[in-house]
């Protein structure tokens, strides 16, 4: 609990649009401050909050802290950061708006939520940019401080929408709007630290966080500890932020603007120790885990690119694990160094996004030909070309699958949630090392920056990964004994990995076609045909090592199967839950392995009358499924740079269920509409 907070009178009345605020403030200070907990507490099972502001307003940090508080409190949660590619887009403009959405609940949830219940808007642009996503009745907490004529114009408002609050036909009429001078109150609260007005105002995000933390009864210790550490070297800034945070809390507790405090109880979770984790962090940890499991030191050869750079940042901190991070001159040199390291017997990794994969394609082909273990991480973003650097998309599947010259099969592994990036990374390393092949690890921007509670895994459960370096001759006897670099393991078809420094096994590899077994250059037509087929057979054979798919078909009577891959797992799962809750049957299966497909996939697809394939692309998995299994896959495709919405998916699933079961589609939609959405 906080100490009692003493407010000073807010006396900056220079701007007319703050007049109302002064009145509010005066009332707060003149009233008796109520006892903590004196306000009404209302129970909720889930809340979606979106913090939005200018990209310099610290909204990502605010959202992240609120998330950490909620995680520490024990809610289940999913987050969706959304920010512009420009580091500091022109202040106050629509393109400069940065937001962070957090969905927290007292039960297991799968998505960051379709529509926010609460919007915190720090300026006119943030209000305008996010208004369209709000459902009727949503609460809006808006910082009025920046609602100046200039900023209103920048955001494209002809008139201040706050002026017409309460009028008939107000643009904000459908919402519960709380206009507050957050900035002014922050400046006032931190006055004692003697900061410049600009620096003082910067703490407004902590004031907002404090207010929201009060409103939802979040524990505050983690944030205060965080601020102490973050600003340890600048005492006045540290104290100002902590003070602003506490002032925000106390404002909530004392003001009459908010009469209700909400409570979202902890979610039941399986026993274990948890932490909140983002996809990029989990992925980096998974790489370290794969390194420890295999005993192979990592060399990450990479070039900074959004949204993958955090993997480089993270690994560069962990040199004590023998990790070398090489920030190369370009994408090609990054993968080149990783291939060199792989030849030298290390775990070669390269990390990038779609444009980087395009540049690395030739080198990945070299790794296919030389059959060296290599991890290629593609944190997908909106494309083509530079596309939408900070937005999410799944449109690199076919690039991962086919984006090389020649027949160059590459296994593809995709994580389905932020925490799952850890396991997917370990799996990619298992495949790469076991089968001596480059492996594509397809994450995306939503997974990379989104976060969720993650049960810290027991390392004893990770797979053993054996580099199994070649040390001896493998062909011929006695005097004729020699080393053949392309003589394969019968079971895996993997070639031996003989690393420099191994006496007697000196050999040359390269991009030219290899003779079967001996590995010398070969232009023989029959040999080329054999080698092309063998490389394909090796990758296809990975399916033998994959577990059966888990089909979620609770009733066993579903006629419609929804199949997805990657980060759509959450929205698809939520959409399926909604359909089931509305009384209809649907089955769900999610693919971790996109190449090769699991062995039982064909049989599973055959069990259902209709197959729906939701993707954040124009139907890339659909194309692969149709091509391989001759299944009449129905696509559900959106490429908006944002995760799919559960409600939209439920509608699409419902329509297909109606068709498959011969029910009136309008009835199914009515069932969905009448079903409360809180389950997702």
């Amino acid at each position, binding site marked *: 609990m906080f100490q009692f907070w003493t407010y000073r009178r807010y006396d900056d009345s220079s701007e007319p649009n703050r007049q109302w605020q002064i009145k509010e403030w005066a009332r707060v200070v003149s009233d008796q401050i109520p006892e903590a907990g004196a306000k009404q507490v209302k129970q909720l099972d889930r809340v979606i909050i979106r913090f939005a502001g200018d990209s310099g307003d610290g909204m990502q940090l605010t959202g992240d802290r609120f998330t*950490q508080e909620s*995680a*520490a409190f*024990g809610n289940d949660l999913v987050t969706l950061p959304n920010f512009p590619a420009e580091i500091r887009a022109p202040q106050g403009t629509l393109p400069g708006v940065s937001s962070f959405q957090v969905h927290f609940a007292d039960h297991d949830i799968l998505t960051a939520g379709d529509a926010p219940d609460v919007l915190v808007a720090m300026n006119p642009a943030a209000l305008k940019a996010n208004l369209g996503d709000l459902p009727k009745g949503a609460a809006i907490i808006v910082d009025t401080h920046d609602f100046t004529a200039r900023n209103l114009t920048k955001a494209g408002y002809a008139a201040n929408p706050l002026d017409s609050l309460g009028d008939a036909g107000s643009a904000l009429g459908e919402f519960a709007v709380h206009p507050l001078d957050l900035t002014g109150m922050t400046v006032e609260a931190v006055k004692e630290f003697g900061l410049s007005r600009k620096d003082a105002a910067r703490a407004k995000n902590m004031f907002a966080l404090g207010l929201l933390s009060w409103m939802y009864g979040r524990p505050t210790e*983690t944030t205060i500890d965080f601020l102490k550490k973050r600003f340890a070297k600048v005492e006045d800034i540290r104290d100002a932020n902590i003070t602003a945070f506490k002032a925000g809390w106390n404002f909530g507790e004392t003001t009459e603007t908010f009469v209700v405090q909400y409570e979202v109880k902890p979610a039941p979770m*399986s026993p*274990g*120790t*948890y*932490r*909140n*984790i983002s996809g990029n962090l989990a992925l980096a*940890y998974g790489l*370290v*885990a794969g390194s*420890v499991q295999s005993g192979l*030191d990592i060399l990450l050869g990479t070039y900074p690119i959004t949204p993958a750079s955090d993997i480089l940042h993270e690994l560069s901190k*962990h*040199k*004590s*694990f*023998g990790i*070398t991070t*090489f920030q*190369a*001159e*370009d994408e*090609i*040199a*990054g993968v*080149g*160094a990783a*291939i*060199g*390291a*792989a*030849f*030298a*017997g290390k775990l*070669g990794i390269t990390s990038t996004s779609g444009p980087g994969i395009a540049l690395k394609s030739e*080198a990945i*082909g*070299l790794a296919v030909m030389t059959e060296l273990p290599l991890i290629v991480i593609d944190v997908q973003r909106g494309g083509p070309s530079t596309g939408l650097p900070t937005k999410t998309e799944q449109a690199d599947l076919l690039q991962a699958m086919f984006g090389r010259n020649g027949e160059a099969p590459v296994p593809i592994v995709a994580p389905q949630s932020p925490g799952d990036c*850890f396991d997917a990374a370990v799996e990619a390393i298992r495949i790469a090392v076991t089968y001596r092949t480059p492996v594509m690890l397809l994450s995306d921007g939503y997974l990379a920056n989104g976060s969720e509670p993650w049960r*810290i*895994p027991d*390392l004893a459960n990770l797979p053993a990964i054996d580099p199994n370096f070649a040390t001896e001759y493998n062909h011929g006897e006695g005097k004729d004994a020699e080393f053949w670099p392309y003589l394969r393991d019968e079971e895996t078809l993997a070639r031996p990995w003989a690393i*420099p*420094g191994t*006496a*007697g*096994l*000196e*050999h*040359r*590899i*390269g*991009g*030219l076609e290899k003779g079967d077994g001996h590995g010398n*250059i070969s232009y023989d037509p029959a040999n080329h045909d054999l080698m092309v087929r063998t490389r394909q057979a090796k990758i296809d054979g990975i399916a033998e090592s994959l577990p059966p798919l888990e089909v979620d078909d609770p009733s066993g009577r579903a006629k419609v199967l929804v199949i997805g891959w990657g980060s759509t797992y959450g929205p698809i799962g939520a959409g399926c839950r909604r359909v089931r809750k509305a009384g209809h049957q649907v089955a769900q299966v999610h693919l971790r392995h996109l190449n090769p497909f699991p062995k039982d996939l064909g049989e599973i697809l055959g069990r259902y009358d209709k197959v729906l394939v939701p993707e954040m692309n124009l139907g890339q998995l659909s194309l692969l499924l149709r091509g391989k299994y001759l299944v009449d896959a129905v696509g559900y495709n959106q490429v908006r740079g944002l995760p799919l919405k559960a409600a939209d998916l439920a509608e699409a699933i419902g329509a297909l269920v109606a068709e498959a079961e011969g029910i009136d589609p309008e009835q199914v939609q009515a069932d969905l509409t009448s079903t409360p959405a809180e389950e997702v």
Partner: protein
Amino acid sequence: MSIDTTSELGMPQLRTGVEGVPTFDGPQTGKDYTSDQEVRWCPGCGDYAVLKAVQSFLPQLGLRRENIVFVSGIGCSSRFPYYLDTYGMHSIHGRAPSIATGIAAAREDLSVWVVTGDGDALSIGGNHLIHALRRNVNMTILLFNNRIYGLTKGQYSPTSETGKVTKSTPMGSLDHPFNPVSLALGAEASFVARTIDSDRKHLTAVLSAAAAHRGTSLVEIYQNCPIFNDGAFDAIKDNDTKADAIIPLVHGEPILFGAEGERCLVRDTESGGVKVALVADVGADAVLVHDAHNPDPTMAFAISRLTELGYLKQSPIGIFRQVERPTYDDQARAQIAQAQEAATGEPAERLAALIGGGDTWTVA
């Protein structure tokens, strides 16, 4: 046998480029470094001479053969690794320096060599070359410069003289050529040398100094292509002309050339660079003394500008620059060692601590 680091070229004893690479005490010959693959360059190709020189030079290094790695890109010269019985990779066009960087950074116990050509290193791979040089990764880059594209059958290269008539430039090429030595010096390479395929003794001495140098050594080797650019280097090879055409660079020696040593290099006060003069005109005291160890690459660059850009009538040959500078890979290893010294516990324990860090909570 160990590498001769105080070679006749007058190089001092630095921390050697092969320090950390296991040595081999038994006898080695060129045959030990010859693979069973049939050499398939055109008859008369300068690559044969370089291959022979390298095969007979490698035993002098006294290293374990399995700890030597040759990496190449694409082009005629890039077939080189197939003919050496060491570890090798014939990679993709222009990328050999990046692959070699990965190898060198991964393993201190390997002697890493790159074989490349004027197209591979200066056209498609120009970026990787300059960045390897500025980083100073411990490796030796042999840049075979025949001033033409051979493998694609005779288009002009980035070192071809302007106006060159080739299959792709029937009215003459328009490109201004690169001077590989100037380029390397501009990238602040720590070791830059030039030698000639046909001068086995000089070639071997330069290779020896390059291998001994810790850091990226760039050795430009003038190499004749008898098919598409025959005679490109005749002026510096022909007995009648070579005394005037070759400007020999030996550290600590006055730069004199010509049949009687009558020509020399002097400072050009007008341009701020270096020019050719007659000793008789300028006097012996004015003759420039070559200082390969000068930390400032300006003079070396000025000397490199005396390379004829058109038909090669004049070219400085020898070691332009050799300075000591920490290598990228040594420093990367030092950072890892420092981090490892500070860490306690087995990797698995530290991993558990890492992933279990941050704000955690426990559900019973």
